[in-house]
């Protein structure tokens, strides 16, 4: 018996640790969110502070000065938020084929070619989805006429509840039923299966340009759609 065996004896009866992955991901996500919101709060405070200062001070007579000060403070930092992954054009992989039955009972095969497609994973049971759904409705109204397609994957849901959800939030684009995560599983290489909501932006050649996990905003959606369209992102 050597020291290694002695150590083995010490850990021999140790029961397995419960899965620590979900907790670790939750903690990480919370810390990122806290960091992000305090950064936003700091930026707002800065803008408000600088604004007050310039309006109150006797040197702010020239409008040009005021504009300059405010615009410097309000310039967004060009870093990508932690919940977004962008793929450069050369490094994109094909989006998985997506077809099934819509909430209304029609069959639908999603075509990706020739236009940007926004795929949003949601469920009527998911509270964060309710936070972000107005952004999707607004983006759809703004961009569907410009050729951007939207489709939802309604996962682990009850169809009646899902239809009520769509009418409550005025969602006009179709969603595919995905009661047992079959559709979501096809996306397992792209987005984590247990992350609802999440969003995949597919470019005009059917390749994944960006993914957003967790709640998103209209600004983020606009930026990522522009990115998939090939426009320069700010």
């Amino acid at each position: 018996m050597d020291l290694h065996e002695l150590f083995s004896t010490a850990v021999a009866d140790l029961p397995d640790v419960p899965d620590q992955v979900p907790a670790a991901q939750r903690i990480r996500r919370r810390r990122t969110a806290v960091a992000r919101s305090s950064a936003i709060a700091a930026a707002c405070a800065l803008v408000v502070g600088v604004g007050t200062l310039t309006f109150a001070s006797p040197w702010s007579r020239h409008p040009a000065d005021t504009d300059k000060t405010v615009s410097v403070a309000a310039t967004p930092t060009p870093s990508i938020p932690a919940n977004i992954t962008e793929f450069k054009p050369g490094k994109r992989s094909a989006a998985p084929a997506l077809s099934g039955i819509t909430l209304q009972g029609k069959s639908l095969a999603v075509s990706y070619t020739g236009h940007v497609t926004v795929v949003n994973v949601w469920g009527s049971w998911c509270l964060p989805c309710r936070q972000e759904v107005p952004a999707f409705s607004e983006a759809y109204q703004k961009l569907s006429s410009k050729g951007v397609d939207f489709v939802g994957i309604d996962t682990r849901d009850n169809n009646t509840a899902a239809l009520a959800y769509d009418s409550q939030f005025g969602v006009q684009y179709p969603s595919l039923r995905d009661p047992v995560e079959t559709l979501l599983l096809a996306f397992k290489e792209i987005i984590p299966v247990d992350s609802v909501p999440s969003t995949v932006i597919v470019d005009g050649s059917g390749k994944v340009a960006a993914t957003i996990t967790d709640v998103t905003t209209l600004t983020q959606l606009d930026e990522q759609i522009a990115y998939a369209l090939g426009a320069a992102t700010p």
Partner: protein
Amino acid sequence: MMDREFASFARERQQQLYRTAYLLCGNPDRAQDLVQSTLVALLRSWNKARDAEHLDAYAKKTLVRTFLLERRKLRREAEIQTLASGGWTDRAVPGPAAEAELRILILEALRSLPPKPRAMLVLRYWEDLSVEQTALILGCSEGNVKSQCSRSLDKLRALLGTPFAELVASP
């Protein structure tokens, strides 16, 4: 995609990390906490970790460094050490059948060492890392690892008594 990769790696390795953490902490609950903070740290630097040549070694390094950092923060080691160092000589050496007793004994003996020398022993003799790899993880010289390990082994031998002296004979 990042979450997915991380999850599959972490699920594969967490039990191994937990065992090493247990040897380092000597307590299952603290070991579990340590595994969790290690995974959070790994997730935070996942982009860097993923590109590391040896992801496994990177994970071990993160575990040991997280452990040492937390110990340094807690500064409770001094108390634990004084508590643990009392009464060793009076303790009856258990028969070979008393596996549970042996386990407690080896864990207590490990706990009597300061965190860094303890981490060295665990890396060298539990993880079976070389002197060079151990030095790299702990950020010290190879000579330091050699001399500290030999001192720690002497201490273990003294603590565990004559029947165990040959068990921890210098390999």
